[in-house]
């Protein structure tokens, strides 16, 4: 199988006050289509930074990132925004749902940027919420849900646009064991049944063990 994500020789540093903090040093990484990969490493090693670069919400200082034959490092901000909305699903540690919107509306949010009709949007949203097992919680607001349920809504939001890759930054980091297992099971299903390529950042060896492959970052180097 061909690599769907090709990260080649990227460098990334951040400016903090007057000095430059190097975060990633000449990182290269290939991820094959349908892969489920876990990125591990100590705090501050650059895991989130690498994930953000692959997902196109930040840009490398140097090097190229090719996703499905598109060099996203060369796209403009607005091209990148459009690219993200079509190709990437995001799952965050703290769910990042919009508190004033219901579960249904949160999942519908990315579909507002498509030209689907209201009826089509509804079908997609219901399908996504059913997949995560929350079809009976559609009208609940985030604060009426448990942490595990919120994260499942977030996963529904990530898959509703049918992206090719899903990035998850410590998706179980804020959950108890039981909820964490539910989430991991869900991610495994997305990978095996729906053939989504998944990149997951995690501290938790149990979570990492669910992935097919584990990569470790240490002080900006991939080992």
């Amino acid at each position: 199988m061909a690599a769907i994500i090709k990260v080649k020789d990227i460098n990334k540093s951040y400016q903090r006050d007057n000095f430059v903090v190097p975060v990633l040093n000449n990182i290269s990484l290939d991820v094959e289509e349908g892969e489920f990969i876990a990125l591990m490493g100590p705090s501050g090693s650059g895991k989130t930074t690498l994930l953000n670069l692959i997902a196109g919400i930040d840009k490398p200082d140097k090097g190229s990132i090719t996703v499905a034959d598109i060099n996203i490092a060369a796209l403009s901000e607005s091209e990148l925004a459009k690219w993200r909305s079509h190709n990437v699903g995001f799952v965050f540690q703290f769910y990042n749902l919009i508190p004033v919107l219901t579960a249904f509306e949160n999942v519908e949010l990315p579909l507002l940027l498509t030209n689907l009709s209201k009826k089509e949007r509804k079908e997609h949203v219901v399908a996504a919420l059913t997949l995560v097992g929350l079809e009976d919680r559609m009208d609940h607001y985030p604060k009426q849900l448990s942490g595990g349920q919120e994260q499942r809504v977030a996963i529904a939001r990530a898959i509703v646009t049918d992206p090719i890759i899903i990035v998850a930054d410590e998706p179980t980091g804020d959950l108890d064991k039981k909820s964490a297992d539910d989430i991991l099971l869900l991610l495994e299903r997305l990978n095996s049944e729906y053939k989504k390529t998944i990149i997951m950042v995690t501290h938790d060896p149990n979570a990492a063990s669910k992935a097919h492959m584990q990569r470790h970052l240490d002080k900006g180097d991939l080992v």
Partner: protein
Amino acid sequence: MKILKLMFKNAFRHKLRTTLTIVGIAIAVIAFSLLRTVVTVYNSGVDASAADRLITRHAVSFIFPLPYSYKDKIQQIEGVDIVTTANWFQGIYIDKDQFFARMAIDPETYFLVYPEFVLSKEELNNFKKERNSCVIGNEIAKQYNLKIGDIMTIDGDIYPGRWDFIVRGIYKPKDKTIDGTQMYFQYDYLNERLEKEAPMRANEIGWFVIKIKDPSRSADISEKVDKLFKNSSAETKTETERAFQQGFLSAVSAIITALNYLSFIIIGIILLVLANTMIMAARERTREYAVMKTLGFSAKHLVGLIMGESMVISILGGGLGLLLSFPVVDGFGQAIPKGMFPVFYIEPITIILAVTAALSIGIISSIFPLIKALNTKIVDGFRFVG
């Protein structure tokens, strides 16, 4: 659209804070309308004064009278159309705190010089016929429930004694800017009684009003009038009605200028109130905006969301304020003595200004949080801790 719904939900996320902001804006708009009304009413009084009318008064002060005999002499001056007279009578009618203008005038000419006080031919004729008749403004008639044929008894102060008048006419102001709260009676009625009771004060006039044929000659004619009585025992000062009004109100004018500035300072305060609310709101949502950008929402959407929210609050506050301004301004008009500001109502320009101010404040208040939201990189937005 869904974004619109999110905008409304955002606006009312903190109900108490939003409500307080809306009430704050409403109060400021009421204060603005009230101040602007005082300012415009004052200015309209000056504007309403006609350019073709001159006022001749005693050179020393308005309170000194002039001889009645000047009337014919002024009439002789070339360019003068009509000369009429007025005496400030004042007195107390029913309630000494309820002030309105009461004057002795020349019934033959006064309404020719002041066509803005509209009186029917029939009523004018009746007024002229009876010595102790009077004409009142429609607002006074309404306020005191007076009808044609009623008796008005006034307790004289400048001219002591009990004075009875029969209402023979009720004039209507030509438009909203004209005073509907005056009372006029015949100079002869006053003068005949003075001849008997205080002959020293008879045949004296408070001021003359001169209607001239050509407004552009007002300076020239004023000078001629004053020259005529130079070196007499009662020298005169003649000026256009407008200059007279402005001079008469010059003390007030400084306050009016202050009120004018104040009304705009109030707009500045609303701006700060709303801008503060918006900055707080946008700051709390830093992460949410980062999420929306991550999902692919663009600057256009964020502008709609943030500016829209700000506009919702400013329109609600402005609308509420404007609605309440009418009863408040009305109540204020009732509370102040009649005659101080004879006409008191919210001018269309005040409404336009208040609406424009509310809308621009909505836009301006959102600019700072908007720039902040647009310039925050997604990765920094996620790292933001409130």
